[in-house]
């Protein structure tokens, strides 16, 4: 499978709905310091169910909702959607016959939140199950965050073991 589309709205520095149409192969994301490139990585992680605010560089999960700028007020909800193409490898379970699936996560400023798969309400568990075989959800080598590449080297041998276990 691969990511066909990423839609970000109200998440971090993306107040206006922004859609990335990614292809297979190599996609380069470029721009000046602070323009939102790493926020794109955070959006993908978050949509797939990231539970740790710290790993999204925030103090609390509310920090992912657009907080406003000097010229613009904050928003009340963050929403990210990922559309995956099956690409010849059938999705698991009830989605086996789908050519693509769309996962959506929302978070409201009052603390409420939800997941959707193809518009139907779903639990975090359902989203995680979609990736059990493929390991897309495995944080350890699907995402190499800014400044983190050196951690593989400085990690303790027990921590590196976990990388091997994820590839098993």
């Amino acid at each position, binding site marked *: 499978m691969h990511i066909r589309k990423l839609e970000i709205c109200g998440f971090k520095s993306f107040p206006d709905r922004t859609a990335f149409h990614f292809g297979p192969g190599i*996609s380069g994301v470029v721009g000046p310091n602070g323009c939102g490139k790493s*926020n794109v990585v955070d959006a993908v992680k978050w949509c797939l169910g990231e539970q740790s605010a710290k790993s999204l560089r925030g103090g609390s999960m509310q920090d992912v909702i657009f907080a406003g700028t000097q010229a613009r007020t904050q928003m009340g909800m963050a929403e990210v959607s990922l559309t995956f193409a099956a690409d010849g490898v059938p999705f698991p379970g009830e989605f086996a016959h789908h050519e693509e699936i769309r996962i959506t996560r929302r978070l409201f400023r009052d603390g409420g939140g939800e997941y959707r798969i193809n518009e139907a309400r779903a639990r975090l568990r359902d989203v995680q199950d979609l990736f059990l075989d493929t390991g897309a959800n495995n944080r350890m080598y699907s995402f190499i965050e800014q400044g983190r590449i050196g951690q593989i080297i400085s990690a303790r041998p027990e921590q*590196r073991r976990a990388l091997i276990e994820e590839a098993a």
Partner: protein
Amino acid sequence: CRERFRDTFDQVDRNFREIYPSLVGGGSARLILTDEEDLLESGVDIMVQPPGKKLQALTLLSGGEMAMTAIALIFSLFKVKPSPFCLLDEVDAPLDEGNGARFNRTLQQMSELSQFIVITHNKKTMECADTLYGVTMAVPGVSRLVSVQLD
């Protein structure tokens, strides 16, 4: 279980021994188990020898040498069990021109296995991408997507 860990470890190690010299332009590297007797608990260590140099502690490696070693390990895991996509955020920042060029070449090979989304400030890396996505903040604090031309 023990069998599976050992098996996976051996595959990753085999890839690592091959990818490292190709990525770095020589030298050698391998993975070792800290405790061969206890496969359930054993940690994983890295032995690396940059081209022409002696085997030394990982901590003495340079910034660029460490990044290349880590990239080689990431790619080794990938070849055993590719995740459908991989997001790399400025992993090429510490690399000089030579290592940067080899990284790009290897990345292109790896992209046959998986989709790669690569954040970079490096012109050479941009040139080897299939598509570029420009993010700007023409309005401060508000990110937008723009099309990118490489000159």
